C-alpha cells in the first residue's frame, strides 16, 4: 500500500485516503466546442502508459479533498515528488520522462 505525500496536508498519508485520477497535465481545451475530431481523440482517449516516470493526478478524497499531481515511477512505485494542481510540470532530477517526447495538449491547469 502506497504512502503518498499530500502537498496540501504537507505530510505522507496512507493510500486508503486517496483516489487515483489518471494522467496529469492534460488540460481541457478552452475552445472545447470547436476542436477537431483528432484533437478530441488526443485529448480524451489517447494515453501513453509509460514504463518509468509518469505524471499523474491524485485526489486526497478522504483527507483535504484536494486534487494534486505527482511524479511516480510505474515500475518501482517510487514517488519522486508531488505538487499542487495548477503548478507546471516539474523536472524530475536525474530522470527522463518516457512521455517527454510525446507531449499532447500540454497546459498547466490539470
Amino acid at each position, binding site marked *: 500500500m502506497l504512502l503518498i505525500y499530500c502537498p*496540501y*496536508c*504537507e*505530510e505522507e*498519508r*496512507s493510500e*486508503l*485516503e486517496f483516489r487515483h485520477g489518471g494522467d496529469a497535465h492534460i488540460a481541457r481545451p478552452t475552445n472545447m466546442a470547436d476542436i477537431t475530431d483528432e484533437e478530441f481523440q488526443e485529448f480524451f482517449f489517447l494515453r501513453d502508459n509509460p514504463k518509468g516516470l509518469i505524471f499523474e493526478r491524485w485526489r486526497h478524497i*478522504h*483527507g*483535504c*479533498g*484536494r486534487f494534486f499531481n505527482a511524479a511516480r515511477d510505474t515500475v518501482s512505485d517510487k514517488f519522486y515528488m508531488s505538487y499542487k494542481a495548477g503548478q507546471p510540470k516539474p523536472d524530475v532530477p536525474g530522470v527522463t520522462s518516457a512521455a517527454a517526447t510525446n507531449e499532447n495538449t500540454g497546459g498547466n491547469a490539470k
Partner: protein
Amino acid sequence: MADQALRKAPLAGRHGGSAGARVTPAAPATRLSLRAGTDAIGTLSLAFGLELPQRPKTSASISGRHALWLGPDEWLLIDENGADLAGIAAGISALHSATDVSHRNTAILVSGPDAAAAIAAACPLDLGKTIFPVGAAARTVLGKIEIVLLRTGEEDYRVECWRSFSPYAFGMLVDGAEDAGL
C-alpha cells in the same frame, strides 16, 4: 398549527467499548461546513469567535465550539451548545460558503487509555502523541467509511461521520475498543 416534530438521533441509546476505551454517542450539536478563501479568514474568525486554523491537521476550540481544518479552504465548525452557526454565517458579508450539516453528521466519543488503539483498529492515521497531539484533526477513513477525527484530550477523541454510516462506525469502534482493552 402542527406540533413540533421530535428529534431522533441515529445512535440513540447505544453504548459500548471496554474499560480502556469507552465508546459513546455524542450529544446533538450544530455544525457548519464552512468554505472560504484566505481573504475572508479574519472576518469569519471574528464572527465565529475563534481563530480559524490555517495549518493542516489542526483545530481551534473555545467553550464547546470547534473549528477543524479539513482542507485549505474548508473547515468543519461544531458547536456542542447548539448555537445557531448558520445564523451567524448569514450575517457575514465576506465571500464564503456556509452549509448547515448539523444533521448530516453525528459524532461518537472514544475515551480512555486505550482510545487510540481502539481507533487504530480501522483508521490508518498515525495517532502517535507527537504526530497527532491534542487538538489535532483530520478527515480520514475508518474501515470502509470516511470520518473526521478530532483529538479532544490526551485520552479523548471525537469521531464525526455521516449519520447513515454511524452504526457501522460505532460497531467498528466498539470492536476496536474491545480488542484494544485486552
